[in-house]
C-alpha cells in the first residue's frame, strides 16, 4: 500500500467516524419523530456517502454492509417499511457495527470484521418477511455485545467540540494536518480513565431486551408526516464559519498573550513614575486592548457542551431499554461553554450519573403509576454558569435517596458501626463511599458500587465538586460544579525566606497568626497547633522544603495556613502571605515533573516564576518521592 492510498484510507476513516455520529443523532431524532422526511433524507445521504467512499478507497467490507444498510433505508424512505422502535434499534446496531469496523480499521488497515449476522437481519427486513411483524429478539450473540461495548466506548470519547462536518457528499477528505490533530485527540483518549468500560466488560451475556412493549405506543408513521420546519434540527449548520486550529498553536498563543500582559504591567508601572501625558494615555489604552486580547485568547479553548449532551440521549435510550423502563431526557444549556480539557474529562462521570439516574433514580413504570406519576420518567440535564463556575445538573423525578436505608445498608456492609449516628446529609453522602450500592439486585447497568466514588474522584481531580439534593418520592439532583478552566486558579502567594510560592486558594481553609500558647512542641509528636480545641499537626514550610536550619527564616511572626482538603487536616507555617491573585498554571518540564509536591508553576507579576505547592503531597514523608 503506498502512502497516497494509506492517506486516503485514513482520511476516509476519520470522515466516517464523523458521519456515524451524525447518523446516530438522526436515528434518535427519527425515533422521537418517525415521519421526519428531512431526517430520513439525511440518513440516506450519509449511508450513501459511506458506501461510495468506502468502496472508492477499497474497504469492500464496509461497502458491502453499507450497501445493504442503504437498501433498507430506501425502504424506510419510500414508506414501505414503518419506522418502529425495533427498526431504530436495528439501525443503531448497524451504526455501531460500522463504527466498530471503522475502529478496527483504524487500528489495522487490513482488519476484517464479520458482519454476516447483521447482514442476514437486514436482508430479512429488506425482503419484507420481518418488516411488519414484531422484531425478532436479538439473539444472545457476539454482535449484540459488540454493539453495547461500542456504545460504551463511544460514550467515553471526549467531545472534540468541532462543528458538524462532512455530512454531505463531495466534501473533501480532511487535510493531513487535520488528521494529525484528530490523531492527537484520539491518542489522548487512550489515556483517559475508563470506568464505564470496565463495568461493561463483565457484562458479556447482555441480551438486548425485546423492545416490543414500546412498539404499541408508537404512532403509525404514515400519518405523522410533518412539515420540514416542524422537525427538530439535529445538527443545525453553524452560522459562524469556523476553522480548525491545532491545540499546540493555541497554547502558544495563550502563552504569548500571558507574557504580553506581564510586559504591559511593567510598562504601566514605569510610566507612572515619569513620561509624558501622551505616553501614559497610550499605555492605558494599550492596557484595555491587552485585557481584551487575553480574554479572547482564553475563550479559544472553550467549547460548547452540545455534543456531550447529545451523546447522553443515546445513553438514556439504551440504558432505559435495557432496564425496561421509560425515560425521557431533556437538556438545557447545550450552548454553555467550558474548557476543552475539562470537557474531555467530564464525559465519563456524566455517563455514570445519567446511567445511575435511569437505574437507581427512576422507578419501574408500575411503581411510578402507583405513586401518581407519569409512566415515563424524566431525566434533566441542565448546564449553566454561576459565579465563575460551571454547574451541570443531572436531575431525575424518581424515588429519591432514602438516607435511613443507606445507613442500614452501610451497617450491614460493615462500613459503619451499628451505633453510628449520622446527619441526613452525611447519610446521603454514603453513596460516594467506595464499594457501596443500595440496590437489592445488581443489574447490568449499575449496582456494583463502582460508580459514584469514581465519579466523585474524577470530578475532584478537575478541582470540582458534586452536591446531592434529594427528596424521597420526588427525585434527586446531582450538581456537578466545575471550574471553567484548569489553566487558571485562584492562588495565595506566600513568602518563605526569600522565595515565593503559590498555594491554590481552594486548598486553604483559613489562615491565622498563632501566639506562643497555641503551639505545643513535643519530641515524639513534633509540633501541634491548638485551634479551637482541635489539635492539628503543624509543619514549617522551610523544613518541608528541606532547607537547613541556618537558611531558615528569622521571621518572628509567622502565619499558619490550615489545610483541610486532605483526608487529615494540618497546618503549615509560612513567613508571610503576600496576597491572593489569579495565576495561569504553567507546566514544568518533564525533568522535574516527578516532583509530586509541585503541581506546576506560575509566573508572578514581576515576571519571575513561582512554584505551585501541593501541600498534601509535601507533608507526606513519601510525598516528596516519585510515584
Amino acid at each position: 500500500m503506498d502512502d497516497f492510498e494509506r492517506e486516503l484510507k485514513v482520511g476516509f476513516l476519520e470522515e466516517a467516524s464523523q458521519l456515524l455520529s451524525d447518523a446516530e443523532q438522526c436515528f434518535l431524532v427519527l425515533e422521537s419523530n418517525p415521519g421526519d422526511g428531512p431526517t430520513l433524507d439525511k440518513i440516506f445521504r450519509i449511508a450513501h456517502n459511506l458506501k461510495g467512499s468506502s468502496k472508492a478507497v477499497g474497504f469492500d467490507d464496509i461497502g458491502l454492509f453499507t450497501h445493504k444498510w442503504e437498501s433498507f433505508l430506501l425502504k424506510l424512505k419510500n414508506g414501505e417499511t414503518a419506522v418502529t422502535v425495533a427498526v431504530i434499534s436495528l439501525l443503531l446496531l448497524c451504526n455501531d457495527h460500522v463504527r466498530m469496523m471503522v475502529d478496527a480499521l483504524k487500528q489495522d488497515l487490513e482488519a476484517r470484521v464479520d458482519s454476516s449476522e447483521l447482514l442476514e437481519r437486514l436482508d430479512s427486513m429488506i425482503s419484507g418477511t420481518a418488516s411488519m411483524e414484531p422484531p425478532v429478539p436479538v439473539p444472545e450473540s457476539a454482535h449484540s455485545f459488540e454493539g453495547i461495548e461500542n456504545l460504551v466506548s463511544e460514550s467515553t470519547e471526549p467531545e472534540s467540540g468541532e462543528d458538524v462536518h462532512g455530512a454531505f457528499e463531495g466534501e473533501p477528505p480532511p487535510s493531513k494536518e487535520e488528521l494529525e490533530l484528530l490523531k492527537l485527540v484520539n491518542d489522548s483518549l487512550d489515556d483517559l480513565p475508563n470506568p464505564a468500560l470496565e463495568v461493561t466488560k463483565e457484562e458479556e451475556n447482555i441480551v438486548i431486551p425485546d423492545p416490543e412493549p414500546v412498539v404499541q405506543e408508537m404512532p403509525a408513521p404514515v400519518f405523522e408526516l410533518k412539515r420540514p420546519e416542524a422537525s427538530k434540527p439535529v445538527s443545525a449548520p453553524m452560522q459562524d464559519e469556523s476553522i480548525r486550529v491545532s491545540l499546540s498553536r493555541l497554547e502558544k498563543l495563550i502563552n504569548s498573550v500571558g507574557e504580553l500582559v506581564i510586559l504591559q504591567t511593567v510598562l504601566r508601572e514605569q510610566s507612572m513614575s515619569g513620561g509624558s501625558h501622551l505616553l501614559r494615555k497610550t499605555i492605558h489604552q494599550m492596557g484595555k486592548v491587552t485585557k481584551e486580547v487575553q480574554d479572547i485568547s482564553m475563550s479559544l479553548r472553550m467549547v460548547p457542551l452540545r455534543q456531550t449532551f447529545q451523546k447522553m440521549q443515546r445513553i438514556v435510550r439504551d440504558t432505559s431499554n435495557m432496564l425496561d423502563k421509560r425515560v425521557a431526557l431533556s437538556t438545557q444549556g447545550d450552548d454553555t461553554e467550558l474548557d476543552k480539557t475539562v470537557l474531555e474529562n467530564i464525559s465519563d462521570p456524566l455517563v455514570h450519573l445519567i446511567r445511575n439516574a435511569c437505574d437507581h433514580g427512576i422507578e419501574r413504570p408500575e411503581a411510578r403509576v402507583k405513586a401518581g406519576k407519569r409512566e415515563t420518567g424524566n431525566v434533566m440535564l441542565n448546564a449553566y454558569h454561576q459565579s465563575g463556575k460551571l454547574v451541570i445538573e443531572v436531575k431525575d423525578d424518581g424515588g429519591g435517596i432514602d438516607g435511613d436505608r443507606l445507613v442500614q445498608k452501610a451497617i450491614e456492609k460493615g462500613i459503619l458501626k451499628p451505633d453510628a449516628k449520622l446527619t441526613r446529609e452525611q447519610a446521603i453522602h454514603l453513596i460516594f463511599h467506595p464499594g457501596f450500592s443500595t440496590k437489592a439486585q445488581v443489574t447490568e447497568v449499575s449496582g456494583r458500587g463502582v460508580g459514584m466514588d469514581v465519579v466523585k474522584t474524577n470530578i475532584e481531580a478537575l478541582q470540582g465538586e458534586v452536591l446531592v439534593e434529594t427528596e424521597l418520592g420526588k427525585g434527586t439532583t446531582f450538581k456537578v460544579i466545575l471550574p471553567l478552566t484548569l489553566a487558571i486558579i485562584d492562588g495565595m502567594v506566600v513568602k518563605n525566606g526569600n522565595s515565593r510560592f503559590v498555594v491554590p486558594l481552594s486548598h486553604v481553609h483559613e489562615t491565622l497568626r498563632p501566639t506562643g500558647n497555641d503551639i505545643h512542641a513535643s519530641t515524639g509528636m513534633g509540633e501541634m497547633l491548638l485551634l479551637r480545641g482541635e489539635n492539628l499537626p503543624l509543619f514549617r514550610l522551610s523544613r518541608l522544603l528541606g532547607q537547613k536550619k541556618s537558611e531558615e527564616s528569622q521571621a518572628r511572626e509567622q502565619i499558619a495556613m490550615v489545610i483541610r482538603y486532605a483526608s487529615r487536616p494540618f497546618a503549615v507555617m509560612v513567613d508571610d502571605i503576600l496576597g491572593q491573585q489569579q495565576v495561569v498554571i504553567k507546566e514544568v518540564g518533564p525533568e522535574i515533573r516527578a516532583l509530586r509536591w509541585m503541581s506546576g508553576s506560575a509566573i508572578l507579576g514581576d515576571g519571575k516564576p513561582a512554584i505551585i505547592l501541593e501541600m498534601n503531597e509535601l507533608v507526606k514523608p513519601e510525598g516528596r518521592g516519585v510515584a
Partner: protein
Amino acid sequence: MGTNNITMNARERFLSFSLGSEEYAVPLLAVREVIAMPEYTPVPYTPPYFLGIMNLRGQVISVMDMRQKLGVKADKNAETTVIICDLGGVSIGVVVDSVNTVLSPNPDEVAPKPEIQSSRATDFITGVYRKDKKLILFLDIAKSLNLEDQNAIKRNQQTGTKNAA
C-alpha cells in the same frame, strides 16, 4: 538528535562554548537561542546543578548548570550565558561560561572519542574535534543532562525524604 551520525552529515554545524578553560560544542540544530543569565527560582529536592526554573517569554523552563554537572571549575571572569536547547520539544536552559563560535567541521576532522578506561561516564561525548591546538568535545545534551537528571532527582528525593522526616 542525530549527533551520533556526525560523520555521515557532510557539514553539520555546532555551537561551541567554554566551561572554565575547556571548550565544548553542541549541535546547532538543538539550540533555540542564547540569552544572558536570567533570574531563576530555585526548586528544592533537586541536584545542585539544577539551578531552578526561569520564565522564557511565558514558558517556564528548567535551568541547569553544565559546569557543575561536568564538574568543571567556572571561569569567574566569564559573563555566564544560557543556551536554550530544544530537546525533542522540551526546552532546557544550559548555563555555560561563554558562547564562542559556530563550527562547521569537515567530517574527517572529527574523531570518535578515544576509548579511555575511566570510572566516569563519557557516553555523552559524541566526538572530538581538534581545531588549531585546541581540543573541542562534542556533547549530546540529552545524554549529558536529561536522562540522567531524572534519576538524579529521584535519588535526591529519597535521601531528602530521610533528612526531612
